[in-house]
Structures are given as structure tokens and as C-alpha cells.
């Protein structure tokens, strides 16, 4: 009979354990979770938003991850997340896929603007570059492969241009391909980094490197180039004022996508992102805030909150 008694005791212990874990769940810290994924460019911004929102609203936990605009959109189409951050526009085939997979239409909201900054090592004497020169460095069959072709000499006798690029799931990569290369292909052989921060870090430690990322990733150890639209035009630095005045030639919208009729919680969050508080965080993260409408608007939240 002993053998029967032992299982009974075990059952009791098990029941107590189950009861305890259930209690733990009921007293969980947050009632609801909002999942955000996508653009690496927008990652620092999305994290700052999530932190500020979490302090203000104790009921909602905002989970943020990066991976690139493409990954965010792919996850949104599978219904795995609530909000996709995207530093490029949704492609028609992605909108179709969303409709086919989930039966819902993706909705777009502009939450800020960004200038695509071009970086070189801080010891590089180059100060300005044109869109055409950038294309010749990056495109397949491009004619610029040495710094001497651009008329500069790199310290330490290194002359080859080390082309730093982004992985193909990056919205920044696709934006650059569309607007700088006019949709031509990138040359093979570039160093394809997984994130904007990796791009900047690699350039900081590589004397002959050139690369691009969102303006917010600038650090004192790399040099941002002034960019001219075409030769003869003046060159402009990627600053807030130059983006708002349409002077800087490679600026873009920062977007978020949701599927149609998101949960109330998601709607509230997006509304908050567009509020002066949310837009102040855009400015604090190093990007350009937006008021309303499709076109670049005058600064609203910035500095006034």
C-alpha cells in the first residue's frame, strides 16, 4: 500500500505548485503587451517611446525589437506583431500579401523624418560628396573604387574605398538603392552590416571606409559628409533645419504600419506618438519631428513641449 501513498503526496505538492504559479500570473506586472518590430534606423526612437509610454501607462508593456524594416513588415503580415516600424514605403506586393494573409489593409502613419547621413572615418579629408559620386561608389560596375579618384589621400597609405552597406532586409538599404542608385543593383563585395550602429562602429575603426545610416546614429568618432544633389549645387549637411527646408537631398519619412482597425490599445499608442510628447522624443532621439500631412511640415512638438 505504500506505493499508493507516495503518489498521493506528490499529487498534493503538484496541486500546490500549480496554484502558486496561477497566483503569480494573476498578479503580473502589466495587463497588456504591445509588440513592435522593424526598422533598425527607428530602433532607438522606438525604444525611447516604449520607455516613456511604459512610465506613463502602467497597464501596457511595449515590446520593441529591430531586425530591419523588411523583418517588421514580414512579421506584421503574419500577424505576429501590432506595429511595424519602417524606414521605407510599403511595397505593393507587401500590401497584397497582407490582404491575402490576414484579410486586412495595412495602414500607414508618418511619425517623423530622417536624413540619410553619409559617413567616413574622422581622419578622411573628404568633406562633400554628390549623389552621382555615391552612386558610382555603390552601384554594380561603378567607376569609383579608390579615394584618389575622389581627389583625397587617406592616411596610412590605404587607397581602396571600403564600401560599407546594410543587409538586404534594411529599409535604409532599399531607400538608398531607390534614391541614390535609381534602383540599379549594389556592387557585390560591400560589407553588409546588420545594423546602423554596426555601420558607424566599423567606419570608426576603418580608415578607408564609407557608409550610410540614419542621422541619429552620428557619433563624434565618424565624420558626416555634406551632400550635393548634383555637381555645381551647394552641398548641405544632414541637419534638422536642412531636412525641413528640403535642402538635404536624401531625406525620408519614418513610418509605422498597422493592420486595419487595430486594437484600442494600439490606436491610443499611435495617437500618443503623434502628440507633442511623442514628437519631442523624436527630436530628442536625433530625428526630425512631424506635425501632420504627407509633406515635410514645420516643427511642432520640438522644443515647445
Amino acid at each position, binding site marked *: 500500500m505504500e506505493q499508493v501513498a507516495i503518489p498521493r503526496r506528490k499529487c498534493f505538492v503538484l496541486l500546490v505548485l500549480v496554484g502558486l504559479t496561477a497566483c503569480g500570473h494573476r498578479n503580473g506586472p502589466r495587463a497588456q503587451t504591445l509588440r513592435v518590430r522593424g526598422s533598425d534606423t527607428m530602433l532607438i526612437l522606438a525604444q525611447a517611446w516604449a520607455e516613456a509610454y511604459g512610465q506613463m501607462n502602467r497597464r501596457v508593456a511595449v515590446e520593441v525589437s529591430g*531586425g530591419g524594416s523588411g523583418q517588421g513588415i514580414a512579421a506584421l503580415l503574419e500577424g505576429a506583431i501590432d506595429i511595424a516600424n519602417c524606414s521605407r514605403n510599403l511595397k505593393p506586393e507587401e500590401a497584397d500579401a497582407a490582404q491575402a494573409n490576414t484579410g486586412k489593409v495595412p495602414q500607414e502613419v508618418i511619425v517623423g523624418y530622417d536624413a540619410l547621413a553619409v559617413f567616413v572615418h574622422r581622419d578622411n579629408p573628404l568633406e562633400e560628396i554628390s549623389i552621382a559620386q555615391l552612386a558610382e561608389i555603390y552601384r554594380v560596375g561603378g567607376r569609383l573604387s579608390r579615394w584618389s579618384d575622389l581627389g583625397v589621400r587617406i592616411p596610412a597609405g590605404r587607397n581602396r574605398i571600403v564600401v560599407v552597406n546594410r543587409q538586404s532586409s534594411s529599409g535604409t538599404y532599399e531607400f538608398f538603392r531607390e534614391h541614390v542608385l535609381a534602383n540599379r543593383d549594389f556592387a557585390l563585395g560591400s560589407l*553588409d552590416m546588420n545594423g546602423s550602429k554596426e555601420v558607424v562602429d566599423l567606419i570608426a575603426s576603418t580608415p578607408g571606409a564609407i557608409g550610410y545610416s540614419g542621422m541619429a546614429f552620428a557619433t563624434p568618432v565618424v565624420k558626416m559628409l555634406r551632400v550635393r544633389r548634383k555637381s555645381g549645387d551647394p552641398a548641405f549637411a544632414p541637419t534638422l533645419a536642412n531636412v525641413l527646408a528640403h535642402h538635404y537631398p536624401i531625406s525620408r519619412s519614418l513610418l509605422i504600419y498597422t493592420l486595419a482597425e487595430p486594437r484600442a490599445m494600439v490606436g491610443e499608442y499611435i495617437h500618443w506618438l503623434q502628440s507633442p510628447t511623442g514628437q519631442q522624443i523624436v527630436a530628442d532621439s536625433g530625428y526630425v519631428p512631424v506635425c501632420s500631412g504627407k509633406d515635410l511640415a514645420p516643427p511642432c512638438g520640438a522644443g515647445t513641449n
Partner: protein
Amino acid sequence: MRRWHQLSEVAIEALIRLCGFSATIFVLGIFVFVCREAWPLWHNDAFHLSEFLFSIQWYPTSAVSKHYGVLAMIAGTFSVTLLAMTMAVPLGLGAAIYLGEFCPSRPREILKVLVEMLAAIPSVVWGFAGLTITSRLIVRYTSADVGVNLLNGALLLALMSLPIIVSLAEDALRAVPDEYREAALALGATRWQLTWRVLLPAARHGLVAAVLLGFGRAIGETMAVLMATGHAIHLPTSVFDPVRTLTANIAAELGEAPAKSTHYQVLFLTGVLLFLVTFAVNLTAGLIIRRERRP
């Protein structure tokens, strides 16, 4: 009561048998799954096997014309692994000979624990070290244009496969019967002659298997090479060239590739290719070990 014992005996035996088979079931299951995901490529007109294997044009997301050639990544994988082996094999075998034959027993135990601790370092930590330490040293002290390159990745892979090579090679050397040592010493051989002429030939199967398993470890590594080799599609012509490996390419691109797209299927085919290579390497190592056990 006796019946209860018999029952539990049967149940436990079944459980243990299941555990034994589970490894096989998982390996087969993964292989079948990977093949199934890649299978629709046979009916896909946008995909050509010859382009896949023999072209370096990798443009899976091109806006103009998509190409799916992984030759540069095959070259990258093998060049970084082979370079790693040229560093890890002499070092690993040397360490194994020292530990097995020359080292006094107390320091040996400490050294063995330290070598095995190398295996416990997560690969992302290796990758980080490659990104922030060794790559900067390479830029500072060589003429390399960029620090994240073939040499940098191979250095990390060599250190990562070292513990496997050292432990297995040491086991192989210690498995050589003491009669061999005694006979050689009795004939007047020096310790060097004993090691070179007697022990290494006697343990050669085990040593080859150790090297092959180290090779298998290096070829399948992902995170460290993704971070440390520069991730550039390029046929390497020097040890300072950046490269991309098959594993790193899968890790970087699988998340974005829309499910069931050609890009997604090609990434799975890359997985099949890797699976076949590691399977062949491990099978060879296994056969060699078995041949040694059955003289």
C-alpha cells in the same frame, strides 16, 4: 508488488529506448523539414541549380533582376574554415601531445579544465571579441584595408574548435597501450622519437577524427563569423579580404525573406547544402573512429 516492479521495468526500458532514438528522430525530422521547404525550387523557373552552385551573383532582393548564386559564400565558408584549421590543428595536436605525454598530472588536470572552458564561451562573445579587439589589431598592425576579414574570422574559429581537437586528440593518444611506450623506451628511443614514430602513428585514426570534428564545429559556426568576417560577397584572394559564409547568410536573411518565396526556399537549399557537408564530415570522422576501435 512484483507486478508493479515488472511494469515499471518495462516502462523505464521503453522510456530509455525512446531517448536513444530521439536524437535520430530529431536529426531526420530536421533534414526532412529543411528539404521540404526547399523542394518547390525544382518547379521554379526563376531558379537554376547551376547558377546556385557556380555563380557569385547573389541578388535575392534586386529591383531589376534577381539572382541566387552562392559560389562566393561556398568559397567563403571553406576558406575561413580551412584557414582556421591550419591554425587550430598544429596548436591543438601540440597541446594534446603535451597534455597527454609530457605534462605532470596535477597541472594537466588544471590545463584540461581551462581548455574545456574555451568551449563554454558563447559564440556571440567570440564574435564580439572579433569585432572589437582582433579586427582593430589587424587594422593597426597590418596593411589590411578592413579588420573584419577572412583572417579575423579564421582566428576566432581556430580558438573555438581548439577544445574539441585537444580533448579528442588527447583521448586518442592516451588510448595507445602503455606496452607501446615501454617497448619504445626499452629500445632506447628518446621521448621525441617515441611521440613522433610510435604514438602519433598508433593514434592516427583518433587524431584524424579529432581534426574532422573540429572542422565540423568550425564549418557550422554562425554568429561569430557573421560578426567577424565582414559579411561581404566576394571571392577571397588574400587573407585580408572580407568574406561571407553560408551560415551567416542564412542567419542574416532568413528573417526577412517572405515565407514560401524563392529567396526563402533558396536559403533552405543553402541549409541542405550545409547539412550534407557537415553530415559527410561527421560521418567520415565516425567511420574512422570505429575503424580504430576495432583493430
